[in-house]
């Protein structure tokens, strides 16, 4: 994973420097009364140092003899992960517009049908059951306020 480390450590390096910069801007304060910026700057500095060490280590290391291990377990595994993430973002975006019940039903339907590759009937049934059931459980059982939308109960 040597070449992967170069990328990630570089990102962390930049992140660390940002914290240091931010901390310095806020002011370190005197040592006997450390200010708001003290901790972020010092810890940020430490983080930057560690990331830098990792970066150097990754760059200097000899290339591994065998092929880089695959990032993804199988060829097509990234599809499932990507689609699931997409549906999570959909839920986030649609929740306040479509309301809980409809969003949930669509969400579950998509996951079961497209990612899980189940049949239409099963997916629709479970989607409806899950959205209504969870609505009942959380809204009535636990008193959580869920956004109302197109389908209001």
């Amino acid at each position, binding site marked *: 994973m040597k070449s992967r480390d170069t990328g990630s450590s570089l990102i962390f390096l930049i992140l660390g420097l940002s914290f240091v910069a*931010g901390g310095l801007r806020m002011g370190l304060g005197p*040592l006997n009364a450390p200010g708001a910026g003290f901790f972020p700057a010092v*810890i940020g500095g430490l983080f930057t140092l560690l990331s830098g060490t990792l970066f150097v280590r990754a760059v200097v290391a000899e290339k591994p003899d065998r092929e880089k291990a695959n990032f*993804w377990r199988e060829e097509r595994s990234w599809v499932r*992960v990507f689609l699931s993430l997409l549906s999570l973002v959909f839920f986030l975006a649609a*929740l306040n517009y479509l309301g809980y019940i409809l969003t949930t039903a669509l*969400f579950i339907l998509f*996951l079961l049908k497209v990612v*899980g590759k189940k049949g239409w009937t099963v997916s629709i049934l*479970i989607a409806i059951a899950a959205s209504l059931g969870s609505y009942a459980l959380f809204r009535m059982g636990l008193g959580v306020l869920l956004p109302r939308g197109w389908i209001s109960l």
Partner: protein
Amino acid sequence: MDSIAGLFYGLGIALQPQNIFFCFLGCFVGTLIGVLPGLGPGGALALLLPVTFALPPSTAIIMLSGIYYGAMYGGSTTSILINIPGEAASVVTCLDGYQMARKGRAGPALGMAAIASFIAGTISLFGLLFLAPPFANFALKFSSPEYVSLIFCGLILVSYLGAGSKLKAFMMGTLGLLLGTIGTDPIEGIERFSFGVPYLMDGVGLIPVIMGLFGISEILLNLEEAGFAGILTEKIKNLFPTQKDWKDSAWPIVRGTVLGFFVGVIPGGNTVISSTMSYALEKKISKHPEKFGTGVIEGVAGPESANNSGPSGSFIPLLSLGIPTNSTMALLLASLMIHGVSPGPFLISQNPEVFWSVIASMYIGNLMLLALNLPLLGLWIQVIKIPYAFFFPVIFLFCLLGSYSLGNTVFDIGVMIFFGIVGFLMKKYGYESAPLVLAFILGPMFEDHFRRSLVLSFGSFGIFFERPISAVFLVLAILLLLISIFPALKRRKERSA
């Protein structure tokens, strides 16, 4: 209140119907989570945390801890039957447990796993019962410098004991501390790193981060897997281990219990480590080490005991010092904090009902789990047969609901998804998440005590070394750091020589 009196007091509370119900619910869900490959206790706790908000603190912790040790019981079921660990600590149980099953001895393996877990769980509780109060007393002597050194030592230890690269683990620890600075500075009241976003004024939400790192990312990682191995469909007859089994397992159980308990106490000591160590230990001192891996019952009894006595051990630092020693304990800490209970030396005096009832209900829980895992085994076997494709949408939904219910804002959902992606990438790139979570939770406390210490000492760093308890922790931490760095330096020398 001394331990025995406390136990009876706690039993009085733990035996209330509401607490019995939620204890059972926790154990049931825990076993379910343990049985299902893919979702571990960390993820389950993260999921169900929001559900506990409406409950009184004792009940909440009773249920959540039920999930934790319940998962340790259930995890062995799939390890033995289909060679897939239900959760991380059950990995070693696969080694001999599955082999026993292939020889037609699945019944005794499962039976022994449950019984060893029960014995270990119950005995280790006595350890918790009698050691926690003195620990708390000792901790009353702590002031800010001691906490700084203790947390520092703890974070170093957690990173050191992690699986992968120590450097990366240390990095994650520091990153966790940095993330903890986002929000309003407690001492000066300035906003730090919030970029004017109102949501961030209180800091990045703890629960969404945890739900993302443990819930969402675990599912995403699981979605990469294809199907799973065939399940042993032979009828499982005869759950009872034979007399020879008992004879062979007796000492492994004792050793496993003690080992797991003490590993649980130290920061970074989690059930994965203790079960692995137990297996290694049993193999080393066995009269027939070559048989390990072919289906010897010691390879099941030892690790199963170790992973069940671990939770009791881990509770000691949490309840007496307020310091979580692994991610699961961190979640319980978060739960306590949300309920307004601050764990630490004062917990026993200020909230005795929480302290004693949690310990008492763990006894009840272990009994329930014995019942859940032996007679109800058939139920779990049916559950395993349900394809994962039906589960994961529901788990996602729970995560989404849970994070939304925190503040009725989709912001929390966003944070959760973000950290879900982060957690997924971290796993892929080889970064440990435990140091990150622990540092994130302990960061604000750490910084606060740190700044106070410097005020106390008028700016001198010597205060950390002048006070004896603090000095001990610091020396320990420095030693650990040196041990971590030396091998790397040696390697570099050898390479350039």
